[in-house]
């Protein structure tokens, strides 16, 4: 099962400040442990929203809104993609991450074909695949 772990931004990350050497060291150690346990598939940090943009779809023309964006809590500053055998395993890994100060880290399973299980009949599955093919082409 694949999981995405979303790390929220903070005033510091939004200001483009790098984390302390100590925290970077702890994070490196944590990342190494994830890698050496075969769990980590991807993980990256994102630049502050001042370097990003939003595109708003409303009316006939999409509108571009340049960063920065104000609600720091709703800003994603980084993510991991993990491969774990269960939701519990992913939670157990996340509990070991070097965070503090009341920060909340969100963990979300990534959709996979098996998630539809028995409910997806061959016919539905085929229709679903056609849809997916189309969206891949669009």
């Amino acid at each position, binding site marked *: 099962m694949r999981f995405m772990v979303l790390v929220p931004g903070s005033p510091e990350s939004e200001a483009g400040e790098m984390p302390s050497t100590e925290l970077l060291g702890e994070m490196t150690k944590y990342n190494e442990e994830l*890698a*050496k346990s*075969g769990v*980590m598939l991807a993980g990256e940090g994102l630049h502050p929203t001042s370097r990003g943009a939003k595109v708003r779809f409303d009316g006939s023309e999409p509108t571009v809104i340049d960063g920065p964006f104000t609600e720091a809590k709703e800003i994603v500053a980084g993510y991991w*993609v993990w*491969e774990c055998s269960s939701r519990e*395993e992913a939670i157990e890994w996340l509990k070991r991450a070097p965070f503090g100060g009341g920060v909340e880290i969100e963990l979300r399973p990534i959709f996979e074909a098996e998630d539809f299980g028995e409910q997806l009949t061959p016919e539905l599955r085929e229709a679903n695949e056609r849809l997916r093919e189309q969206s*891949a082409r669009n």
Partner: protein
Amino acid sequence: MTSSATHRAIDAVWRIESARLIAGLTRIVRDVAVAEDLAQDALVAALEQWPESGIPDKPGAWLMATAKRRGIDALRRRIALERKRGLIGRELEILQQLDQPDLAAQVEDVQDDVLRLIFMTCHPVLSREARVALTLRLLGGLSTPEIARAFLVSEGTVAQRIVRAKRTLSEARVPFEISSRDELAERLPAVLEVIYLVFNEGYVATAGEQWTRPALCADALRLGRILAALMPREPEAHGLLALMELQASRLQARVGPRGEPVLLADQDRARWDHLLVQRGLAGLRRAEDLSGALGPYTLQAAIAACHARARSVEETAWPRVVALYDGLAALTGSPVVELNRAVAVTMAFGPEAGLELVDSLADEPALRGYHLLPGVRGDILVRLGRLVEAREEFARAADLCDNERERELLLSRALACGA
């Protein structure tokens, strides 16, 4: 937490900690069977206590301390008993080892223990089946029934394989330490082979009703990722991982809606797993950067990468695939590689050239009874428009094939050649 939620959480902790725990205990007691028993005792203790106490802050350290303490208690009782009978054996030795502070764990990286354990469970004194079973059990954290299901054998067979393997390691006094870099290099191929065997059994199930068993591929990928992270300077560890990631990227696309196999040429490439493709290509670059001459797994990964980079079968760099197969054939001398090379030659230089190669393999003893020899020949004959002969080849291939789904595919290809 409800008790079933706690049990699931304990499963998760076990999945994360068991390999490190068993590896650390093996270093201390020098016997993998004893180490596994101690680890199992600690798991039992966790199942008894954690539903009440909650999961401790450092569950790995808790399990290790508990395994040692329970081991010491049990050994003291047994020694007291045997003293009465005048027997004191190996127990005393193990007791002393367990009853000392574990200084090595403070100076060495515990991950080194895991690496040594992998090399131990893949030791050449064991049969291939035993290596696979023991590695999945001790490093993959799979239970005996899970291994039995994965390989379509009975639980009893797997249990016996594991018991025998542990006894063999103990009787052969296989040391936990690896004495030199040379020994590490020499024994690495056996480790890579075990991981790839597991992967392949998931990727093309040799028997049974299912064409693939993705869970087994996931187990192999996990082991491959662990190995590559523990041996970051070893090109073939990265090569094997890249190969598995690239092949696994096609897992979803190579099974049709009714569970039937979908061949590479017919796969919807939009359904390939692009995260795995990227990881595979990056791993291949790492392997190539670390290599002098490319090893067999890196070469196979390079071939898989040609497919991963191509938008369609037609746009595949077939001459490069042929060149890579040339290198692989020279390295391995394997007739199966020659057969795959014939497929690439067909695509690069036309079916006549491919057929010539396949026909030169007709008497190869290693390919006798191998369903893909007539399978490939049938495919080339179709391209030459020789449908009557192609039909016979597909029918022969279906006869030789033990996988139900692949058999159906071969029969339908025979049927498609007309009556």
